[in-house]
């Protein structure tokens, strides 16, 4: 059964869209990320133009991360002070991101920029996660303590910055400057790539700010919800590219898939989860790299002026 997507201007099978939502939702529930890094490329593969894909996935992620936020809030796993600090940077970042998105689009290099950011970020983050998780799996086999455990003396340059603040729920005392900065960077990247940035945000909070694992995912979910909700409104305002029908079908599959994913994750050790997620991210990254270096099927491409890419 085909459904006509009014903004993407394309009929797509409703079952394909629901399955896509379920599958990506499963992954996002399993790893506590939005899954945008999978959803956006898959929509482009289905024939949705990159601009509409990026904008509509922002709406989809709003739904899935808001449902996550509520669950984590109930479990008192949200550091609201840190979320607000991240958000201050994040709101600024979203505005810059929307502006940059519109500018790249007018330069005709948006698709290159999207592929390129995917390639660099995904291979880097995926590679690091795979290496880190393999190392901790090996250490566990040898009965050595986890590398992620917080030790009192483990201070980096980040801890030398001024404007320190005590984040009570996370039990850390740290400058707000890197917190603002991380919120800003994640939001800019998220808007341009059509991803919530959870797969970047969580490692940054863990490795740079040393936020404990108990509060990290819940706090990240709050930031993702807020930036993606704002991104939805701003994409709708500036580029008219948000396809509400597409987003609705995706999020319906997505929130259901996320529940099953979250349940499956409970039976897996965190290191193995990180390894699997890292591997998945790396695979998507390589796919983008492959596309950039192999000769395209069509050297000539048509773009309608004054409309979407």
């Amino acid at each position, binding site marked *: *059964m*085909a*459904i*006509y997507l*009014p*903004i993407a*201007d*394309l*009929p797509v099978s409703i079952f394909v869209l629901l399955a896509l939502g379920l599958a990506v939702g499963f992954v996002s529930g399993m790893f506590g990320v939005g899954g945008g890094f999978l959803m956006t490329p898959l929509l482009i593969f289905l024939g949705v133009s990159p601009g509409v894909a990026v904008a509509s996935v922002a*709406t*989809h992620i*709003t*739904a*899935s*991360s*808001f*449902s996550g*936020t*509520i*669950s984590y809030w109930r479990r008192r796993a949200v550091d609201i002070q840190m979320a607000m600090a991240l958000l201050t940077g994040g709101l600024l970042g979203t505005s810059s991101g929307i502006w940059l998105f519109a500018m790249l689009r007018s330069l*005709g*290099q948006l*698709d*290159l920029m999207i592929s390129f950011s995917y390639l660099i970020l995904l291979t880097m983050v995926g590679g690091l996660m795979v290496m880190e998780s393999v190392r901790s799996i090996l250490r566990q086999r040898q009965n050595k303590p986890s590398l992620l455990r917080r030790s009192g003396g483990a201070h980096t340059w980040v801890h030398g910055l001024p404007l320190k603040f005590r984040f009570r729920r996370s039990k850390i005392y740290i400058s707000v400057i890197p917190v603002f900065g991380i919120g800003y960077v994640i939001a800019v990247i998220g808007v341009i790539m059509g991803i919530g940035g959870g797969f970047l945000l969580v490692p940054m909070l863990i490795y740079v700010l040393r936020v404990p694992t108990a509060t990290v995912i819940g706090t990240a979910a709050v930031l993702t*919800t807020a930036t993606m*909700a704002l991104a*939805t*409104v*701003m*994409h*709708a*305002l500036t580029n*008219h590219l*948000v*396809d*509400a*029908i597409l*987003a*609705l079908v995706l*999020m*319906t599959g997505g*929130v*259901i898939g*996320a*529940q099953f994913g979250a*349940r499956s994750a409970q039976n897996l050790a965190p290191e193995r989860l990180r390894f699997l997620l890292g591997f998945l991210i790396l695979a998507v990254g390589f796919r983008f790299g492959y596309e*950039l*270096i*192999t*000769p395209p099927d*069509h*050297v*000539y*491409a*048509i*773009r*309608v*002026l*004054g*409309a979407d890419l």
Partner: protein
Amino acid sequence: MIAPLRHIAGSLVAVGLQCCSAGAEQVIATVAPSTILIGSNYSGGSIVVFGAIANDQPSRSYDAVVTVTGPRQDLLVRRKERVLGIWVNRLSRTFPDVPSFLAVFANRPFDAIASADTLLHHRVGLKHSIFVDKTVDEDDPFATNLIRTRIDESLYIEQPNGVSFVSPAVFRVEIPLPKRALIGTYDVDLMIFAGGAPVARTRSTFLVEKIGVAQFVATASVDHSLIYGLATMGMALLTGWIASIAFRRG
């Protein structure tokens, strides 16, 4: 898929004699449906054009060429080149007022209907109909690739055996519309040839419109973009909230 019955009104169009030479022939056409509706279950459609030649002379045998032209749009054709091992968009060319859809159907091969000069003069055939003021330059890779890509996407169709004559003076042609049909007015141009020269011509139109949810969403996203954005955001938050309640036990 195709519009409901009430919309298949079929537009009768009076005679047009502006093109053509001496003969007394006239051509009358109906296009059905007169409006193609894109609802949330649209996945392509088609129109049927019926034509009848009036005042026909039994001694003559007629040829018909039916051209359907969709709303025109400005296109940018870009060429990817390899730079430092990566394929990036480099050169580009703009083509103004290019049809979003173009179908040229005839009852037999064009070179059998009229001479190349006649076809060019009356702008008959795919490559003479694309640009408003000129014919496609075969040596221009941007133009030829534009056409090739659009033919691959079924947006441009040239079908020399698409028109069928029901009787010597009555013909019929069914023209498929693309899944990604642009909304707007589509022109239908009928040309009748006899003995290698045009003898009658008429024009008609049909509309492609969005209806229902598809129309509502498409209009709202442009005309009330702030409300649309806020409503879409609200829908997402609501979905997330409902999901968190529905699955609370788990």
